[in-house]
């Protein structure tokens, strides 16, 4: 066992996890500030300089809140459900490459936690498992309406998970691999397109795939125009209506971690993660992910909400066919590229 490699990788994983949790906390602050700016107001600025301590204040507040468990709720499931969605969310950051390999104190450290062969499928699997947090949360709170709300949002997440998966097949065809590290390398050699050095990012060769991925990602995290489950809590009772205190914040924060994870994924898959015009590095990845996060918030302020049937109709009647067409086209282009056609 090469302990040094194991240790360095472990430390790197520890850093990544903490950065994700820290980012998650400050994502709430970032969202409230940007939301406020877009709505002609100021946003939190009382707690600490420029309101920077707001996430900590929220955390303490939620900790102090009473943690009510409904009387005839299914206790065990009620307690586990939020943990499930909270724990699964940051795991998908394990496969995201934050850079190549770098030597620290003479020890070869590669800047990704794990380069598994089925990285993207791993992320999809985590998305699939995240649905359990929603369903069990709705079921366990023993009230008929949060159950109906939970089933609706589960159906939404499943439908958009299919679109998410299919929209990425285009990228797999071009890069020939599922592992994010290799996808990143495939995007790094710049294409010379009529003399002009064009970065070989997949957003350029996969525009339709990118748009589909974006829409599906927004729907998968129950955000912005697809946040029916939240609105549903007005009508039917969203799955987290019965939760309170810190348990509720697990659901709430899981949403933000999902957003960050998906933004990192989108940045890596379509915008060439750490690859930048001047000096490659993790800051490029951070900038691109921040771009996506801003896009999330921008959607939330401007767009009204879909109705449930429109939302499902969009997934099955519009996005899915488009994804299949995208796959067929990319396949043909790839074959034509290889000269087999």
């Amino acid at each position: 066992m090469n302990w040094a490699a194991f240790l360095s990788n472990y430390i790197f994983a520890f850093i990544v996890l903490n950065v994700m949790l820290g980012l998650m906390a400050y994502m709430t602050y970032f969202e409230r500030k940007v939301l406020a700016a877009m709505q002609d107001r100021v946003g939190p600025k009382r707690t600490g300089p420029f309101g920077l301590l707001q996430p900590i204040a929220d955390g303490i507040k939620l900790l102090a809140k009473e943690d009510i468990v409904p009387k005839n709720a299914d206790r065990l499931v009620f307690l586990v459900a939020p943990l499930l969605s909270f724990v699964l969310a940051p795991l998908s950051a394990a496969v995201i490459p934050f850079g190549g390999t770098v030597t620290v104190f003479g020890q070869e450290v590669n800047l990704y936690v794990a380069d598994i062969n089925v990285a993207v499928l791993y992320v999809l699997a985590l998305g699939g498992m995240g649905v359990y947090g929603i369903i069990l949360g709705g079921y366990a709170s023993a009230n008929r309406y949060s159950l109906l709300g939970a089933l609706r949002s589960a159906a939404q997440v499943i439908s958009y998970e299919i679109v998410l998966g299919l929209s990425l097949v285009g990228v797999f065809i071009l890069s020939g691999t599922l592992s994010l590290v290799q996808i990143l390398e495939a995007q790094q050699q710049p294409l010379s397109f009529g003399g002009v050095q064009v970065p070989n990012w997949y957003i350029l060769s996969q525009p339709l795939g990118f748009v589909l991925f974006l829409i599906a990602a927004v729907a998968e995290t129950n955000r912005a125009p697809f946040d029916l489950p939240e609105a549903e809590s007005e009508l039917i009772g969203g799955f987290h209506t019965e939760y309170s205190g810190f348990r509720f914040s697990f659901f709430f924060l899981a949403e933000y971690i999902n957003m960050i994870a998906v933004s990192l994924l989108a940045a890596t898959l379509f915008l060439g993660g750490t690859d930048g015009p001047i000096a490659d590095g993790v800051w490029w990845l951070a900038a691109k992910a921040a771009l996506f996060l801003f896009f999330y918030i921008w959607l939330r302020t401007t767009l009204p909400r879909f109705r449930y049937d429109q939302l499902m109709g969009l997934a099955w009647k519009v996005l899915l066919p488009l994804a299949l067409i995208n796959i067929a086209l990319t396949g043909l282009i790839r074959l034509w590229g290889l000269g087999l056609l």
Partner: protein
Amino acid sequence: MSAEVLVFDILGAIAVLAAAGVVLARNPVHSALALVVSFVNVAAIYVILRAEFLAAAQIIVYTGAILVLVLFVIMLVDPDNLPEFHGGRPVQRLLALILGLALLGEVMAAILTRTIVGQPGPWSPQAVAAVGGNTQALGRVLYSGYVLPIQVTAVLLLAATIGALVLARPDTPRVRALVRDTATISLAHPRGSEMANGVEPALPALAAGQLKLEAGERTLVMAKSGDDFLDQPVWGERHQS
């Protein structure tokens, strides 16, 4: 005990216990949860057996889709009126147990006395790594020797979805069946209603300047005075539904 075997045993033990939990759980939702635990552990075992693609497929398809559907059905079927635990007749349960143990004995005997037959196939771990990984190797095998089964599975899945659609098609709820054609009122000021029935209220003849606001594709009609368009109501297509 190499680390691999140790991990395999732990995962296997959890999977078996969870499987037992599926059978023994009183509440079907709990048995579904136990099944999730069992499937996740089996997926981990696939990773040990160097089948990463299968592990991911197992989690995405089995736990991510099939089990979620099962949970849907459990919850939609109003879980309170479920039959009592182990409603079966005790004799049948005992018989089943004996049968099960006998089968287990037989199978274990077969497993322990088996002799490996046939020489190892071409895909040794080194060959798989050379090609680029389990997914790439699996892709090559699938699309070299098994193209026909793939097409058949595709047709099967299509048939299954259509079947499910037919089965689960909700009978149409009675919705806005009535066509609302109350008598219309001529509108100087709403005094009486002497609208000849059957006369379709059409958009009023509009003076040029009056059609004003092109909002979306919808036009608003601007009335200059209180007695414009008083002969009959302004109306787009009549709503038959």
